[in-house]
């Protein structure tokens, strides 16, 4: 690892505001507010205000800058509470040798002292504001973007234009305080864009200072610092009896560890502007120059102003984004609610909106658990996880974590796809819930930099801290973590949870009601079955009407096809043999359809059979053939066995064919998902009847359903109207036979009998 040598967390305890020195590009004096006596001075005061420290310490401020200027100081409002723009105070006074000195002073209050910092005044302080082009550029470029990334890009570019730094980066801090470079403008070939940094790169004291001081400039990293001494000549640092608090000092000297950090990167000058939204550190504009760079005061002020403007815009964009996400969540929830109102089950709807829900919450996998049913979408672990421990952490039915492995036991595969998770309770008892999964950060991270440029070891062989090294460290930290769930995610999750919970409650209530009414429904069903008898007459009329209506077009079709064939002959067009066959087939089909319609009509209206003494095997074979026309079971084995010397039966062959067709079709449909697909039909005789048994290898008929399956309108299969088996029973009974469910160890077995042609029939 490259970072062992510089452990930045040690800086957390370092009192950098008590460093007792200033950078060399300005001088500092501190005046006791009550007495007006100069109590502290940096050793370089002579350069900026003409007086050496020893000549002014213990003197009045009026002695140093003249009575008139000193009198002008108290009315200045010197607040130290909030970060604010640099407010330089310009004045001039007579120096000790009588020359006039122009001063640019940055005054502020620190405890009992007023600290005055002097920098070299610019000849034309307001020059940059006169730059019409720059101003216009700023306005158009900064106010145009409505996307966060674009705004950051524009800001970085403008700040580099204004300050002339080699590299301007915009960092954004995540909730866990790690930083990401979201924008960069540079004249250098390498790029830090897209890199992430561990939180420890910016120690806590530095972070505090970033909030308190919007602007921090270091024109020369290696410039000799100038110590601040008190009236006794002691350096006023942390070890002193009365150190001087430099929290708000613009000139404050640089901490050694920071000097090393910047030197490691080859940075000669740096500047940072804090981006503060909602009173917290949102991010940072970090400017690096690969050599010393002193930026003029007016440009600094301008850059500071840009920083504040950017902060404000970022806040507005971020608020908008948050709002938009919430609105999207509300919209999705509303959409689901609407569809649920039309009776669609919640499970279906959530699955349908899976992509939406995952996009909205920045997740890649989704598990909807409704009791025993689990619906999966996106990428989910192959081995299911137990989310109960995560549920235990939920507040108002929502729990999120970016390190699910710390909450739930999981293996490496699970950790990849479910590094982080959001848990939404959809029922009070937790039996129903929605879990949204975030993949490992490594897999979701956007790598936009140029990873080949990694400086790790310096010429002297020591390990060096570099942005790349930091990134590696950061990745190490991210192992087994997902991107964190932020406030915006939480808002969306809460909105979705509220809606889905409500819908699920309604659905559960309905299911409970349904179950409660099940017995009543059963009663109603029986009543319906009884009413069937009464319905028979009207059903007969209906059958008659349908038969007539169907027969008309059937007749027409048959006529047309016959006419067509004849017209070909009349026109002496030689018709392809195959076409003629197809026409014959078409006619045969209309005849068959007409036949079927009329026989069923006859049967329903009058219970009439068009019975003949027939060979039962012929009818059975025909029924099976028909059933296999639409069969899609290529593995199906069919075994038909018939006892020798079967007697004839008095039966309507078409109707018996229908019975076989119905039963075989049911069997085929029941075996669709069976391992073994075998259909066994056996035909036997006794002295009175011919008995037919049809056995399949499907799941069989549940015991509680066996007594109902022959009743009309009982949908025992998912297809059809549930009259197939009842029709079978009616037909068999009309033939004087019976039909039943035969107990069997494998699949379902249905048996029926038809009376055999006996001697009394002769």
């Amino acid at each position, binding site marked *: 690892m490259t970072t062992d040598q510089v452990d930045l967390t040690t800086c957390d305890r370092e009192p950098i505001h008590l460093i007792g020195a200033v950078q060399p590009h300005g001088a500092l004096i501190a005046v006791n507010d009550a007495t007006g006596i100069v109590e502290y001075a940096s050793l370089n005061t002579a350069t900026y205000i003409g007086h050496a420290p020893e000549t002014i310490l213990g003197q009045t401020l009026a002695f140093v800058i003249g009575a008139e200027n000193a009198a002008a100081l108290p009315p200045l409002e010197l607040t130290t509470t909030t970060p604010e723009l640099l407010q330089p105070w310009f004045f001039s006074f007579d120096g000790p040798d009588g020359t006039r000195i122009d001063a640019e002073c940055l005054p502020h209050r620190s405890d009992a002292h007023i600290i005055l910092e002097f920098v070299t005044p610019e000849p034309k302080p307001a020059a940059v504001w006169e730059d019409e082009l720059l101003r216009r550029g700023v306005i158009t470029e900064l106010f145009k973007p409505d996307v966060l990334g674009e705004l950051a890009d524009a800001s970085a570019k403008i700040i580099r234009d204004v300050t002339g730094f080699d590299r301007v980066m915009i960092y954004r801090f995540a909730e866990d305080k790690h930083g990401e470079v979201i924008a960069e403008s540079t004249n250098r070939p390498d790029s830090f864009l897209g890199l992430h940094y561990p939180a420890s790169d910016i120690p806590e004291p530095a972070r505090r200072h970033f909030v308190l001081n919007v602007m921090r400039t270091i024109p020369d990293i290696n410039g000799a610092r100038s110590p601040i001494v008190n009236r006794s000549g002691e350096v006023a640092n942390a070890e002193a009896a009365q150190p001087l608090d430099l929290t708000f000092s613009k000139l404050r000297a640089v901490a050694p560890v920071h000097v090393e950090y910047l030197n490691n990167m080859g940075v000669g000058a740096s500047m940072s502007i804090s981006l503060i939204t909602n009173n917290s550190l949102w991010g940072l504009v970090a400017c690096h120059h690969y050599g010393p760079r002193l930026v003029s005061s007016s440009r600094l002020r301008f850059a500071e102003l840009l920083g504040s403007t950017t902060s404000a815009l970022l806040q507005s964009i971020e608020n908008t984004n948050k709002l938009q996400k919430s609105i999207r969540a509300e919209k999705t929830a509303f959409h689901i609610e609407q569809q649920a109102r039309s009776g669609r089950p919640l499970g279906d709807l959530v699955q349908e909106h899976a992509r939406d829900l995952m996009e909205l919450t920045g997740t890649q996998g989704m598990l909807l658990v409704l009791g025993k049913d689990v619906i999966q979408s996106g990428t989910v672990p192959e081995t299911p996880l137990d989310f109960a421990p995560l549920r235990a952490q939920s507040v108002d039915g929502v729990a999120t974590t970016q390190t699910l492995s710390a909450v739930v036991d999981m293996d490496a595969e699970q950790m990849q796809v479910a590094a982080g998770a959001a848990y939404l309770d959809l029922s009070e008892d937790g039996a129903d819930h929605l879990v949204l999964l975030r993949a490992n950060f490594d897999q979701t991270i956007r790598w936009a930099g140029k990873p080949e440029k990694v400086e790790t070891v310096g010429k002297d062989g020591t390990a060096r801290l570099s942005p790349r090294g930091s990134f590696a460290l950061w990745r190490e930290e991210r192992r087994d973590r997902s991107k964190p769930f932020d406030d915006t995610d939480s808002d969306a999750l809460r909105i979705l949870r509220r809606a889905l919970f409500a819908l699920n409650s309604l659905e559960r209530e309905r299911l409970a009601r349904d179950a409660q009414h099940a017995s009543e429904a059963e009663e109603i069903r029986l009543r319906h079955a009884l009413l069937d008898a009464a319905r028979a007459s009207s059903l007969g009329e209906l059958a008659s009407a349908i038969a007539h209506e169907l027969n008309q077009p059937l*007749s027409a079709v048959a006529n047309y096809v016959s006419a067509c064939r004849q017209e070909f002959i009349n026109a002496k067009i030689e018709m392809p043999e195959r076409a003629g066959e197809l026409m014959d087939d078409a006619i045969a089909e209309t005849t068959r359809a*007409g036949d079927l319609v009329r026989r069923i009509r006859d049967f329903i209206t009058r219970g009439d059979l068009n019975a003949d003494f027939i060979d039962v095997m012929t009818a059975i074979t025909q029924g099976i053939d028909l059933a296999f026309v639409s069969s899609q079971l290529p593995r199906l084995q069919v075994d038909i066995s018939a006892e020798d010397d079967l007697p004839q039966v008095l039966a309507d062959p078409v109707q018996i064919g229908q019975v076989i067709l119905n039963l075989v079709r049911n069997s085929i449909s029941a075996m669709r998902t069976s391992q073994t697909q075998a259909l066994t039909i056996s035909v036997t005789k006794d002295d009175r009847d011919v008995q037919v048994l049809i056995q399949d290898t499907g799941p069989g008929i549940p015991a509680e359903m066996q007594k109902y399956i022959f009743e009309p309108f009982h949908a025992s299969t998912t297809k059809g109207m549930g009259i197939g088996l009842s029709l079978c029973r009616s037909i068999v009974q009309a033939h*004087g036979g019976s039909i039943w469910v035969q107990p069997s160890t494998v699949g379902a077995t249905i048996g029926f009998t038809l009376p055999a042609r006996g001697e009394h*029939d002769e």
Partner: protein
Amino acid sequence: MMNRFEENLSIYVVEDDAGVLKSMCALLGAHGHATIPCASAENFLRVFDPDRKACLLLDVRLPGMSGTQLQAHLNELGISLPTVVVTAHGDVPIAVQSMRAGAIDFIEKPARAEDILNAVNMAIGMLFNRQPPVISKKIVSNRLAKLTDREREVLHHLLLGKLNKEIANELKVSQRTVEGHRSRIREKMHARGIADLIRMLG
């Protein structure tokens, strides 16, 4: 084609279902018959030309004046028109009634083209004094002789256009027994259906 030599002969097709009417005319037309489509009995009476040599293909199930009523009306007017009646299947009472009212044949919907053409040709034959092929009385009586008394009784009821259920009630036997009798009657009489029986026995 079959009657190209009878060019002034037409077939009135009376049928209320437009599809059936059009297709029936198409079929007959393809086989060389001139057809005059009529959508109702009333419509037929308006276009009917007594001087034209014609036969009639008549659907009995019509809105307004029914096919049977039209037959009766024509009989009253003394108009003798070789008529083939088209019935819905199993409308035995009506078929029997129509045959007695002078129809020379009946066909059931949906009918095979062959049946329609045969029936129409039989009607055309009537126009030229050709009688429908009659099975000799001897053969018929030979066949009748094979019937049991019970079967003869059932046959009698069948010719009256009675339903199985009615016959069963009257003879105080089960419907299944009647069905058995019917099946054996068809066997012994070499009849495809009731129309054949009516033709053989009037």
